[in-house]
C-alpha cells in the first residue's frame, strides 16, 4: 500500500519538500542543542520544563482523540464515521511519534534514553507513559493498516482485528490519563495538583482533536477526490463543541476552588496567567488570546447556523484547536512552575532555536500525516459507496 | 528481471556504503596501539609491588566491566572497598586509585581507546591527572 504514497501531484511533492526543509532546519538546530546542551532553550532552574513538554502533553491529547471517531463507529455503529475512522487512526500515529520526539529532544542526556528500559521503575509515572504510548502507537498502526488494506481489496476487515479495535478504544483515554498523572501527582505544584487535571486533559483532548479533524477533513475534501462527508464533519464539530464547553467548565471549577477556598498558593499560577504576578506578565497576552479563541470557538460551535456554515465552522474549529494548544501546550506547563518553590517569579519564553526544533518536530508529524492521508485517500477515492454514502458497495 | 538496472545500481551503492570503513582506510598508515605503564608513580615502586588490583590479563579484558561494578558499588551501595582475588583491599576510585598510578591518561587510556575508536564518557566528569607536559614535549 505504501506505493500509493509515491504517486502524487506536484502540489503533494511540493508540500512534502517544504516540510522536509523545516524538518532539516529542526535537525540542524537539534544538533546544535545536542552540542551545547539545553541551555540554548528558554528553560531555567525554576521553569525546568517548557515548550517541548507542553507540546508532548498537548499531542498526547490529539492522539487520544482518535477515540472520538473510533468509539461511535465501532461500538455504536455510527455509520457516518465509517469513512473517516481511518482519518482518526492515522492522526494518532504521527501524534504519538511527535510525542516521543518531543520527549527525546527534551532530554539532557538523550543517548541514555534506553536507561528507562534498562532500569525499569514502576513507581515512576513516566514508566507507564512509555508503555501506554508505545502500545497505542502499535495498536493504531495495526488497526488502521489492516482495515485500510481490506478496504483496498474490497473485502470486509478480518475478524481477528476486532479485539484490537476494542483494546484501542479502551487504551486511548489511558494515554492521556497517565500523562495527566505526570503532573497531578506532584506535591508543591498547586496549579497541577488537582484531581480534575486528568478529566480536563481528556475533555480538552476531545475538543482539540475533533476540531483538528474537522479542518483535516475539509482539507482532504479540497485536495483529493475523497469526501469524508458533510454529516461526519458536523458530528465532529458537535463533539468538539460539547467538550470545549466541558473543558471551560472544568477550568472554572478549578478557579472556583482556588478563589473561594482562599488558599493563596492555589491562586498564584492563575493570577500569574491572567493578570501577572509581582509585575511579571509575559504569559498574560497568551492567556488573553486563549480566552478570546475559546469565546469564538464556543460562539461558532454552539450556534447551529454558524456551525453548519462551513466557512464559520472552519474558523470555529481553528479557534478551538489553537485555544487548547495555547492552554495545554504553553501556559499549563509554564504556569505550574510560577511562582517557584521560594515564592519568586522567574519567567519563561521559548528561544529561537527551541522554536525551530519545535517546528521541526511538528513538520515531521505533518510529513508522516500527509503520507498516511495520501495512502488513505488514494484507497478511499477508489471505493464506491451506496447512495447514502454509508456502505461501501464496490472497491 | 524487471527494473534490473535500478536494482544493480542500488546494490552498487549498498556495497560501496558497507565497505566504506575498509575503502576509507586504504593507504593510511597502520598504527598499532602501544599503551604505556611506565609512569614515575609505578616506576618508583619496588619491582615486586608493581601490580594492578588484578592481573594484567584480567584488567586488559575486564577493566570496563570492573569499573562499572565499582561505580555502582560506590555510588549506589556506599561500598568503597574492593577485595581483590589475593585478598588485598583497595579504595574503589577511578580518580583517586587508578589514576594515581596510571597518571599517563593519554598513553594508558587513550592509546587503545583511540585505536579501537571507543570514547568512554568517564572523562566528561572525572578529572584526569595533570600529565607532565614538558616531559612529553622533550621526548
Amino acid at each position, binding site marked *: 500500500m505504501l506505493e500509493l504514497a509515491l504517486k502524487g501531484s506536484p502540489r503533494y511533492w511540493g508540500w512534502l519538500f517544504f516540510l522536509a526543509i523545516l524538518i532539516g532546519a529542526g535537525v540542524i538546530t537539534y544538533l546544535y542543542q545536542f552540542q*551545547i*546542551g*539545553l*541551555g540554548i532553550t528558554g528553560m*531555567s*532552574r525554576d521553569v*525546568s*520544563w517548557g515548550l517541548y513538554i507542553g507540546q508532548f502533553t498537548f499531542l498526547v491529547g490529539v492522539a487520544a482523540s482518535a477515540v472520538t471517531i473510533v468509539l461511535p463507529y465501532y461500538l455504536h455503529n455510527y455509520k457516518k464515521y465509517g469513512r473517516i475512522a481511518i482519518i482518526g487512526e492515522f492522526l494518532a500515529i504521527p501524534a504519538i511519534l511527535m510525542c516521543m520526539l518531543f520527549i527525546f529532544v*527534551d*532530554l*539532557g*542526556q*538523550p543517548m*541514555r534514553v*534506553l*536507561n*528507562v*528500559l*534498562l*532500569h*525499569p*521503575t514502576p*513507581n*515512576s*509515572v*513516566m*514508566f507507564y507513559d512509555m508503555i501506554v504510548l508505545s502500545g497505542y502507537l502499535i495498536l493504531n498502526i495495526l488497526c488502521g493498516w489492516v482495515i485500510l488494506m481490506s478496504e483496498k481489496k474490497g473485502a470486509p476487515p478480518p475478524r481477528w482485528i476486532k479485539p484490537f479495535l476494542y483494546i484501542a478504544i479502551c487504551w486511548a483515554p489511558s494515554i492521556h490519563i497517565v500523562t495527566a498523572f*505526570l503532573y497531578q501527582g*506532584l*506535591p*508543591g505544584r498547586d496549579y497541577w495538583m488537582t484531581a480534575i487535571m486528568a478529566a480536563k486533559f481528556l475533555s480538552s483532548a476531545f475538543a482539540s482533536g475533533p476540531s483538528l479533524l474537522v479542518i483535516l477533513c475539509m482539507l482532504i475534501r479540497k485536495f483529493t477526490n475523497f469526501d469524508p462527508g458533510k454529516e461526519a464533519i458536523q458530528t465532529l464539530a458537535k463533539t468538539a463543541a460539547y467538550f470545549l464547553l466541558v473543558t471551560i467548565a472544568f477550568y472554572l471549577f478549578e478557579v472556583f476552588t482556588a478563589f473561594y477556598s482562599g488558599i493563596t*498558593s492555589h491562586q498564584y499560577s492563575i493570577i500569574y496567567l491572567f493578570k501577572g504576578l509581582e509585575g511579571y506578565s509575559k504569559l498574560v497576552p497568551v492567556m488573553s488570546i486563549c480566552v478570546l479563541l475559546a469565546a469564538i470557538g464556543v460562539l461558532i460551535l454552539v450556534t447551529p447556523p454558524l456551525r453548519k456554515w462551513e466557512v464559520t465552522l472552519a474558523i470555529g474549529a481553528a479557534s478551538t484547536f489553537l485555544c487548547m494548544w495555547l492552554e495545554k501546550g504553553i501556559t499549563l506547563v509554564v504556569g*505550574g*512552575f510560577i511562582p*517557584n*518553590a*521560594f*515564592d*519568586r517569579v*522567574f519567567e519563561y519564553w521559548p528561544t529561537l532555536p527551541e522554536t525551530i526544533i519545535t517546528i521541526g518536530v511538528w513538520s515531521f508529524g505533518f510529513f508522516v500525516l500527509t503520507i498516511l492521508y495520501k495512502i488513505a485517500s488514494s484507497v478511499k477515492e477508489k471505493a464506491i459507496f451506496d447512495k447514502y454514502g454509508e456502505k461501501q458497495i464496490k472497491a | 528481471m524487471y527494473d534490473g538496472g535500478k536494482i544493480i545500481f542500488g546494490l552498487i551503492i549498498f556495497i560501496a556504503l558497507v565497505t566504506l570503513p575498509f575503502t576509507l582506510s586504504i593507504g593510511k598508515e597502520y598504527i598499532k596501539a602501544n599503551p604505556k605503564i611506565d609512569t614515575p608513580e609505578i616506576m618508583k615502586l619496588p619491582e615486586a609491588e608493581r601490580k594492578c588490583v588484578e592481573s594484567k590479563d584480567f584488567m586488559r579484558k575486564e577493566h570496563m*566491566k570492573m569499573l*562499572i*561494578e565499582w*561505580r*555502582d*558499588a560506590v*555510588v*549506589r*551501595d*556506599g*561500598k*568503597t*572497598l*574492593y*577485595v581483590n582475588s589475593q585478598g588485598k583491599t583497595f579504595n*574503589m576510585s577511578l*580518580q583517586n586509585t587508578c589514576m594515581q598510578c596510571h597518571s599517563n591518561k593519554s598513553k594508558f587510556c587513550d592509546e587503545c581507546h583511540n585505536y579501537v575508536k571507543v570514547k568512554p564518557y568517564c572523562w*566528561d*566528569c572525572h*578529572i584526569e591527572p595533570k600529565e607532565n607536559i614538558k616531559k612529553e614535549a622533550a621526548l
Partner: protein
Amino acid sequence: MSNINRREFLKILGIGTFMGLGGWSMFEVVGKGEIEAFAEKYKKVPEALQAKRWAMVIDLKKLDQKIIHDCTEVCHRIHNVPKILNPKEEIKWIWEEKFKNAFPEMKDDYMSPEIKNMPVLVLCNHCENPPCVRVCPTKATFKRKDGIVMMDMHRCIGCRFCMAGCPYGARSFNWKDPRQYIKNENPEFPFRMRGVVEKCTFCYERIDRGLPPACVEASNGAIMYGDITDPNSEIRKILSSNFAIRRKAKLGTKPSVYYLL
C-alpha cells in the same frame, strides 16, 4: 547493580526482552559470572558512619554571614559545583535564602522585617518520602539505606521530572557544560556533565569514609547532624528540647532537615 540477585536480574532481562530492545546487550552489561561473587568483593570501610536515617538540624540563631559563606564555599568547592552567575542556569547544593522565601507559607504581614529577611541555609531535605525518587524513571535518584537521597549522575537521562517533583527547589540542572565555570577544581571529586541533574548528597563520600558532612564541619556548631532514629543521638536531644520547624512539612515528604528558631 551489585546487590542484584538472580531473580531481579531475570526480571530486568525479561522486561527488556519484552520491550524487544537491548535484551541481549543487557545480559552483557549485567554480566554472567559476576553475579555470584558480588557479596564478598565489595565492602564498606570499617570507619564509615552508619545510621538508619541521617538528619540535620540547622540553628538559625547561630547562623551569621561568615558561617553561611563558609558552609556554601566549602560544599561547592569540594564538590566541584560550578559558579554560574546567571540565576536561570545557577547550580546550588546549599545556599542562603531569606526566611520569607524558605518558608513562604509562614509569611505574615506583621512579621518583623528582621525575621522576614533572616538568613536561612537551604539544601536538599533528604526526605523520608522523597517525590523526586518516586518520579525518577531510571532510579538515577534513589534513597540509600541510611536515608540519604542520592544522585547517580551516570544514570540520569536529564528528563528533569525530579525537578518538577521537588517542592523545595533543591535540584539544579546542568544546562551547559559546567566545567568552564569551575575555577579551583577538587581533584578528588568528579565534575558533572551537561544534561544531568545534581543536588546535595549529604556528603555521602565523606560519610562513607567516616567524616561528617562538610557544611556541618564548617558551621561552627550551627549545623548538627546525626541518626534521627537513635533516641540518644545529639540531634534527637536537641529536637526534644527545642521547637523545630521543617520546610513545607504539610506536603508529607517528611524532610530530614530541621530548623531551630
